């Protein structure tokens, strides 16, 4: 998979859902690993302070570093990063789950939420 892409721009992002398979998992392994390391507060602190340094210490490839630098969460999903792990990294960039999710839709979290908040309610047959 990774060989298909020389540059982050090469990662295709067709519309629709992505199913995270073993193949994705293997392709995105090191990216997933760096995100997974952020489940520890001390690592989050280091990452927040200097993520370039953190990536270098983690031994990411230039391609992978560019993928982080790009903050292109949609490409990361297509590359093979698990959404739960993306969440851990996005948080260290002060982005909420909604922020990076709305990014994949091509919109701002604020707009997505404003549209959805009025819909938050029970939705049983009797409630309608």
């Amino acid at each position: 998979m990774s060989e298909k892409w020389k540059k982050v721009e090469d990662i295709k992002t067709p519309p629709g859902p992505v199913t995270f398979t073993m193949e994705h998992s293997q392709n995105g392994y090191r990216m997933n690993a760096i995100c997974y390391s952020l489940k520890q507060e001390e690592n989050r602190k280091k990452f927040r302070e200097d993520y370039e340094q953190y990536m270098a210490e983690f031994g990411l490839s230039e391609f992978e570093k560019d993928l982080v630098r790009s903050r292109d969460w949609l490409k990361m999903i297509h590359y093979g990063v698990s959404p739960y792990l993306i969440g851990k990294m996005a948080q260290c960039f002060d982005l909420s789950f909604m922020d990076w999710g709305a990014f994949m839709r091509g919109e701002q979290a604020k707009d997505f939420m404003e549209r959805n908040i009025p819909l938050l309610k029970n939705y049983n047959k009797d409630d309608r």
Partner: protein
Amino acid sequence: MANFVGGICTSHNGALMHGWDYQLREDPIWTPLFESYDPVRQWIIDKKVDVLFFVFNDHVSNFFFDCYPTFAIGIAEQYEHADEGSGPRDLAVPYGDVPFSRYMADYLIRDEFDLTVCQEMKLDHGIMGPTPYMLDQPWPVKFVPFCVNVIQHPIPSVKRCWKLGKSIRKAIEAYPEDINVAVVGTGGLSHELQGTNFGRIELDWDNEFMDKFEFEPESMLDWDVKEFMDRGGSESAETVMWFAMRGAMSKKVKRIHRNLYRGMLTGMAVLVFEDAE
């Protein structure tokens, strides 16, 4: 002998963590969600439940892809809370029932389920999302966490989880101690987190699914997981875990409670069934 008292299904998600940790019950948007768990809490009290057997999934909080189990059971004396980004949550310690969980692991392995047996497991919102809504703290029950891979495909099929439920039921009823056990399936319902349709929710399907799940679950046993993903979004694959609960129950069930709430990213449902037969 142990007594199977019934089953619970519930969604789990980050919103449930948020709503609890910020104590949003009085916020009118959150009130119906909190209230939808009140009958569950009461039922657990009324039934004098001693142990909840949770069929749930981890969100790469405890397990990593270096070694990712399809089915993993906890047999520990107590469990830690996972750090999902803001430190471990401020919730009571979940205690296990060691002899019972060991017994369940033993029974299920002998019944040809290829379990990974865990003496340590950190629990994330896959269990700890809904639990504070349906149980007071300190927790009045013991926990048995049974973790299912629903993240790295292929995941276990609906039918495999259904069979698991049948075996769990047989095991509970053969346990020599006089305890009350309920089975909980977590996850779902509709949601999609990966790709351009992030935030997709399918509430009509969620209601239809809950009808089928109650009255004719067997009609879905041969469905590929993809069928659920097509209808309810990529992450509704989690629904397979509900089938472990349903497989543990009689063909006809008595519905004690059912609610569907439209969350920001998830069709959030909660169900309580007892055997009708």
